[in-house]
């Protein structure tokens, strides 16, 4: 068997040292950022009342928990990363290129989030000290993230977990202040008036499923470092990290928007609160929130892809992602409607990608792999020329079907590509390329056999 890249080798059970609570906090901090407030205010702006918006967001997050848990199972059971998980679905050669699909939105969002954070810091700097220089703040903010991400995947996960605890304290203070500012009675009086249970309601559900689809694709990358003793605990840690966080943040966004017409509590504080302490709290929110979201959901997945495709050392992948995310002109992205249109169309690629990966592992292979073949060039998962045609056809077909109705693109993409992939693989690819793990009585090898072939054990971590 060929040498295995250290960063792609499976994480063994003994090395899965991250606890479920820490994992839960990491996910929570991924979601704590300025955009989370906007999901709430966006739901109100879409025509829902607060009660309907909360129900729509709960449904969306439940769907995201199911998708994340399902697509993270290979990482959970066998400690393999997304790139390796893609090999049976798209072929061992094509998987490297398909994985780059995940890197593109990661780069765009990294630059976008950094510039948003720098804008917030610059605004506070103007208000507190009269110092105005967005470029200095942007450089400092972005550079700090790149340096932190150089420390490796585990450091990123640890940072985000601890940041979440601090962020919850900040949100609690913000929440108390918002309720004090507007009054509980005033807020409850507008909570259930007006709204719609029709198309706007389901539009909000699908929009919020779409927002989570980028991290669904590489959910194995996160879970492979976590203790894998219990599936219910694994699913619960996703649910506890996602659902309460989104509801609390969106709830705050909704209240502020419904009462003042302002999209985010941070903006509310900047505009109307003449209180140094509250401004500092809002500033801490921006720094920690944007940092943890960017490193967890954007920089880390992109780095892992560059490490594999270009064989860069980990520290350089951070510089590479950091510089690429500046070359996309983030200051233009924050003002361009074209960016949102592009992300909508791009979401139509990520939905099918998730649908294919989930179908492949759960419904076709019944949660088993031929471990050696996963790491063997030209082996069972090369399908002759390194391309699984069923995966590529299903991806293209799912994408084309999704863009017919962009509002519901993610859901359409997941379902359509899953069905197409299942049928094509079962009746077209499988007869030509029989799969060992799909034969009756197959006993899987331990992932440890792969680690024995790895260059250096988890050098990138």
């Amino acid at each position: 068997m060929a040498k295995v890249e250290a960063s792609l080798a499976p994480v063994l059970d003994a090395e899965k040292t991250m606890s479920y609570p820490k994992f839960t906090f990491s996910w929570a901090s991924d979601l704590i950022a300025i955009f989370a407030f906007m999901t709430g205010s966006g739901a109100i702006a879409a025509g829902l009342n607060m009660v309907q918006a909360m129900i729509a967001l709960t449904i969306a997050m439940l769907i995201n928990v199911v998708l994340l848990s399902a697509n993270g199972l290979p990482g959970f059971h066998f400690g393999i990363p997304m790139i390796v998980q893609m090999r049976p679905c798209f072929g061992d050669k094509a998987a490297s290129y398909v994985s780059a699909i995940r890197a593109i939105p990661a780069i765009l969002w990294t630059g976008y989030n950094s510039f948003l954070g720098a804008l917030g810091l610059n605004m506070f700097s103007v208000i507190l000290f009269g110092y105005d220089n967005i470029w200095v703040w942007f450089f400092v903010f972005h550079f700090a993230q790149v340096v932190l991400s150089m420390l490796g995947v585990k450091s990123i996960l640890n940072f985000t977990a601890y940041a979440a605890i601090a962020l919850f304290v900040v949100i609690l203070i913000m929440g108390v202040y918002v309720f004090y500012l507007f009054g509980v009675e005033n807020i409850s009086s507008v909570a259930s008036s007006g709204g719609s249970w029709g198309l706007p309601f389901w539009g909000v559900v699908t929009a919020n499923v779409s927002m989570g689809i980028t991290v669904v694709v590489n959910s194995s990358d996160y879970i492979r470092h976590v203790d894998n003793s219990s599936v219910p605990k694994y699913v619960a840690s996703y649910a506890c990290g996602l659902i309460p966080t989104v509801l609390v943040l969106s709830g705050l966004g909704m209240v502020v928007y419904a009462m003042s017409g302002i999209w985010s509590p941070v903006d509310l504080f900047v505009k109307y609160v003449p209180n140094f302490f509250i401004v500092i709290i809002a500033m801490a929110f921006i720094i920690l929130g944007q940092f943890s979201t960017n490193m967890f959901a954007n920089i880390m997945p992109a780095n892992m892809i560059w490490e594999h495709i270009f064989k860069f050392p980990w520290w350089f992948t951070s510089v590479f992602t950091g510089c690429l995310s500046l070359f996309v002109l983030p200051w233009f992205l924050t003002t361009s409607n074209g960016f949102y249109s592009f992300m909508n169309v791009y979401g139509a690629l990520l939905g099918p990608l998730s649908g294919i990966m989930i179908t492949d592992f759960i419904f076709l292979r019944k949660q088993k792999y031929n471990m050696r073949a996963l790491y063997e060039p030209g082996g069972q998962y090369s399908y002759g020329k390194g391309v699984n045609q069923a995966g590529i056809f299903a991806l293209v077909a799912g994408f084309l079907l999704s863009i017919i109705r962009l509002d519901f693109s993610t859901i359409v993409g997941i379902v359509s590509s899953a069905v197409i992939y299942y049928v094509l693989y079962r009746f077209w690819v499988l007869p030509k390329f029989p799969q060992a793990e799909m034969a009756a009585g197959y006993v899987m090898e331990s992932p440890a056999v792969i680690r024995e072939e790895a260059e250096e054990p988890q050098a990138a971590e």
Partner: protein
Amino acid sequence: MTGVKERVFAVKKRIFQLAVIFLISSLLCCSAAALDVQVKDAYSTGELVVIAVSSEQQIDPQDVSIQITKPNGATVDVSPRQERWNSANECFETYTIDLMGDYKIVVKDVASGQTAEAAFTSRMFTSASIIFMLVAVGIFILCFVFSAKQRKKHSDAMREGS
């Protein structure tokens, strides 16, 4: 001679009167232009614009209104604020650019009835953003060269080891 003296005196008196009128009118003109608004000439799109309003007299931000006309003709009305770093005759407001093109700002002080105007352009690139990008390119090249050297060293060491 007396007539000449009288005429000279009359001319001097007239000159003095004109000078006084000029002085008063200049003072009046100055006070009419006392309200001032400062912005940079050009910003990169998406940047934060600090609209600095100043006056020769004390200024109450509640009396001041700022109207921003966007490149598409839409207008945004905002009211300024004063912070500790402002003097009594200064106030400011921040505005985040969301479109490319020419913006116009009109500031009115209701108390004195004075107005002031300023304009700026929002572009894809300004000298600041170009310098920023050049620094990023420089860092990228330096890190790339360093990484390539390190990888070469590593592969040489591996070859010697084997």
